[in-house]
């Protein structure tokens, strides 16, 4: 079951994990909004260790101004569920 839904306020996991991951560095720790559910897919962090873990993948929209301090565009990044934490109530 997907933990988040379209409209959920989320934050990309901060920090640098020991192994492989597909969280781009530029969104780590940043707040975004779920704008799409992209289905369930194998988590690459586990797959590289030979473990099969399937998780929902979300399209998460970040504001350029939040990521870079400037820019009027949006960047939409696909993130597996365990890459995200809830950001509701924050501002």
């Amino acid at each position, binding site marked *: 079951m997907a933990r988040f839904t379209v409209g959920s306020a989320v934050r990309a996991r901060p920090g640098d994990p020991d192994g492989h991951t597909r969280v*781009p560095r530029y969104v780590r720790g940043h707040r975004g909004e779920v704008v799409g559910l*992209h289905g369930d897919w194998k988590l690459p962090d586990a797959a590289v260790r030979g473990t099969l873990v399937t998780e929902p*993948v979300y*399209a998460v929209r970040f504001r350029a101004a939040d990521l*870079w301090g400037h820019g009027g*565009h*949006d*960047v939409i990044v696909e*993130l597996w569920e365990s890459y995200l934490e809830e950001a509701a109530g924050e501002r």
Partner: protein
Amino acid sequence: MSGDHHHGHDHGGGDGGHHDANIAARVRELEAQLVGAGQITEAELEAILLEGWSGSPAHGAAIVARAWADPGFRDRLLADGNAAAGELGLEAEGYLLKAVANTADVHNLIVCTLCSCYPTNLLGPSPGWYKSFAYRARAVREPRAVLAEFGVELPDSTQITVWDSTAEARYLVVPARPDGSDGLPEASLAALVTRNGLIGTALC
């Protein structure tokens, strides 16, 4: 740079165009290591490469032309790209095909900042610049400047959305239908669509 590397050309720049010989040697070595370790066979490697070469930007152009000509198809394409491609006899398998439409208000741009994800089996190999460090780094940070370098000048009122293919979706931009294309048959519409248009670095 390795010690046996003595041919004369420039390896600076990082635009994806000056590293070919070096990259080819590295790829051959990687292939040899994988085959030697029993991870993959030569035949399997060949099959993967052929799958990439069976794709073509013409497939994307055909999808876009149908979307321009048929609003019902356009809706289905934006809702479920894989199924819509299937309607045209095109296979998009192993990934989520996500079509994103440009309008007067929104321009979409596709990048893969982590590597070079691209719907290769549908659209064929990606262009060299798509894999360059410069494009991958700059597309998410300053897309308007990148687009200007491709000759795409957007009004300030146009919102830019950059899609970073970090997971299992592969993206297809549906450009806005050009003015003056009313009444054209689908084949003529398809001829208006370029590979860059399908990535978002051209208006069409």
